[in-house]
């Protein structure tokens, strides 16, 4: 049985429809990420699940039970806020014990549960440390510990890493990932950061204007974006999008743009229904454009390097074909710099194709 079922959720704030029609479910031990830009309805959805907002219509089931009329504290949901909300003047022990004390759990049982939780989340060595003395990583652990000590059926995380600088975020993301694996509680995670969603979630629901635009595993979302919005939102640097149309040269199917003629005969079956003159967008992720100083592939296109952004072992190359600007992400190559003439090859197995009008994926 799924731990969480959300059915046809809708929420109006006055005339503004924050959530239009959202449905999904989360299985045991699964982490689902609600991802989208600000204003897409992800936080409202989370708050409805937690019981902090009342939906205009729709249903929320936790562990098989309809909870629409159940107050937040009785929903058996653990909620971890953006700022962790650790009590600074209480020890780690008391922070974790807080919810149990409120519920008047007997002392002996309370102590056992706090200690078990502390050892699960790896803070058993610092139970006496005060909240205000904790580092970021321990704060995150304690915040999660405080929720899971109550044995929730579901854990909700609201942008827990958004206020942390890049280096610390990398470390905290990995910590959170490991913790999730150890705890194994069904989790809904809200973020606007696509990398966070990719790295932490089992499945992602990409939201836009109150609706789920696409839901799937991280690989599905990344490799098979069903709409232009999802394709552009996921991945950094952003996917290259090139205006083109499909033309036939005898039996060969060719995607043609100003600077480009890409033979796509091998995909003819999938794209065969495209009418002549239809405006298309060819999508290629920067890492699927490889560059070389020599022409090693017959389909390679000559380009000039306009800008190089070194990012460690790899670099982002800003290329200009005769008119077309394309980004390539490839290994750092010392002999390629601004002004270099290179040959760029698109990885044909990784092409995306969108209908420009409907913004839906064809390939």
């Amino acid at each position: 049985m799924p731990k969480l079922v959300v059915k046809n959720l809708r929420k109006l704030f006055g005339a503004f429809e924050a959530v239009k029609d959202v449905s999904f479910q989360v299985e045991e031990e699964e982490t689902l990420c609600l991802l989208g830009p600000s204003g897409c309805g992800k936080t409202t959805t989370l708050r409805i699940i937690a019981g902090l907002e009342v939906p205009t219509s729709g249903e929320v089931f936790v562990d098989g039970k309809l909870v629409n009329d159940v107050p937040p504290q009785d929903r058996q949901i653990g909620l971890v806020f953006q700022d962790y909300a650790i009590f600074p003047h209480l020890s780690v022990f008391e922070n974790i014990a807080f919810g149990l004390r409120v519920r008047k759990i007997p002392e002996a049982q309370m102590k056992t549960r706090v200690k078990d939780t502390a050892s699960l989340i790896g803070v058993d060595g610092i139970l006496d440390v005060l909240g205000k003395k904790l580092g970021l990583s321990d704060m995150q652990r304690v915040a999660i510990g405080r929720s899971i000590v109550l044995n929730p059926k579901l854990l909700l995380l609201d942008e827990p890493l958004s206020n942390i600088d890049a280096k610390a975020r990398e470390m905290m993301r990995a910590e959170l990932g490991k913790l999730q694996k150890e705890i194994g509680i069904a989790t809904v995670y809200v973020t606007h950061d696509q990398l966070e969603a990719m790295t932490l979630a089992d499945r992602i629901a990409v939201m836009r204007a109150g609706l789920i635009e696409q839901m799937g595993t991280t690989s599905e979302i990344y490799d098979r974006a069903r709409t232009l919005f999802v394709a552009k939102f996921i991945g950094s640097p952003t996917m290259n999008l090139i205006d083109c149309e499909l033309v036939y040269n005898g039996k060969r199917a060719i995607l043609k743009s100003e600077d480009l003629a890409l033979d796509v005969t091998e995909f003819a079956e999938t794209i065969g229904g495209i009418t002549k003159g239809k405006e298309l967008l060819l999508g290629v992720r920067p890492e699927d454009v490889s560059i070389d100083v020599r022409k090693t592939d017959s389909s390679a296109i000559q380009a000039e390097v306009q800008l190089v952004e070194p990012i460690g072992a790899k670099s982002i190359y800003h290329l200009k074909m005769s008119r077309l600007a394309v980004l390539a992400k490839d290994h750092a190559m010392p002999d390629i710099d601004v002004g270099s003439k290179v040959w760029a090859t698109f990885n044909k197995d990784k092409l995306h194709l969108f209908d420009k009008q409907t913004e839906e994926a064809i390939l």
Partner: protein
Amino acid sequence: MVGLRFANISKKAGKRQILKNVSLEVPDKELFVVAGPPGAGKTTLLKIIAGLVVPDEGEVYIGDQIVNTVPPSDRDVGMVFEVPPIYPNRTGFQNIAFPLEIKRLRKDQVKERVGEVAELLQISHLLDRKPATYSGGELQRVALARVLVRKPRVLLLDEPLKNLDAKIRETTRVELKRLQREFGITMIFSTHDELEATAVGDRIAVMKEGAIEQIGSPKELYSSPKTVFVARFIGSPTMNLTACALKRTGDRWVLDALDFKIDVKTGAHEIESEAMTQELLLGVRPEDILLLDSGDERGCFEGQVELTQNFGDERVVTVRVGKTSLNCLTGKDRVFPYGQKVYVKFKEENAHIFRKETGIAVA
């Protein structure tokens, strides 16, 4: 346009030493990045160049001139702040034209210069609109235009991308770099984000607690970090660092990290005399660890998958070898389930060695 130079600059605020004996030289037309975590002294350094903070010791040169006592308004230095002070009730044109009106330029001259800068920054469409209608990126560009319109000799940008969305940050970063090239301006840019630093900078000064740790090109900082701090700061995912000792077995030199050992390929004789008796840290970048399915090859070590993070184009797999967790970077086409047995192999020639006590690189 001119370069600038810091000679032994120190600055205290109360008892706290904000800058410690900072010396650096930025040649004309360079894009120089000051990078480091919050509290490293980046903003103070920029403010000293602008003349908004007076150093306790040392000299600041702009071109050949010592400017320690020159007031900010006479330095010809433009500074864009993290949160740009834009007037909400003025149009884009009025905001950008403001510094020229103070200088009492003729109306037609003002119009011409604002028009030029707006076109260059692609914000001509914002000239008649008020700031409330701008996006974050547009607001930043209007702020930048207001500084550029004065044609400063040196342009300072204090964390200019910090408050922008990830997607806009990516494109604005490129715009700034293009702009700096086109204007041929000396630009100093501060950031806490290492990826931004290497992507943008010709050279980067990595700062820690008021002092410069290392100055170098993106490539130098990535491949030859001089300290553990720089090694950890530059590169994402962060370099793996493990305590180790240098040992001799037969005629081979080996770095022994308890859970694994690696051969020292080069420079063993250099580190031998001084390092034998010292505790060392072995640094291996995630991209320099190969993941193998079998342990047949010499020099590989068995481990277990602890965590997999999907980056879209790549995966970061955390492997536990003995008591050590190692982050390894691998392609996206291989899947590593939680708990799976794998073998790690190090690219020994890319290993980094540091003295544990001082954090300084060996050889």
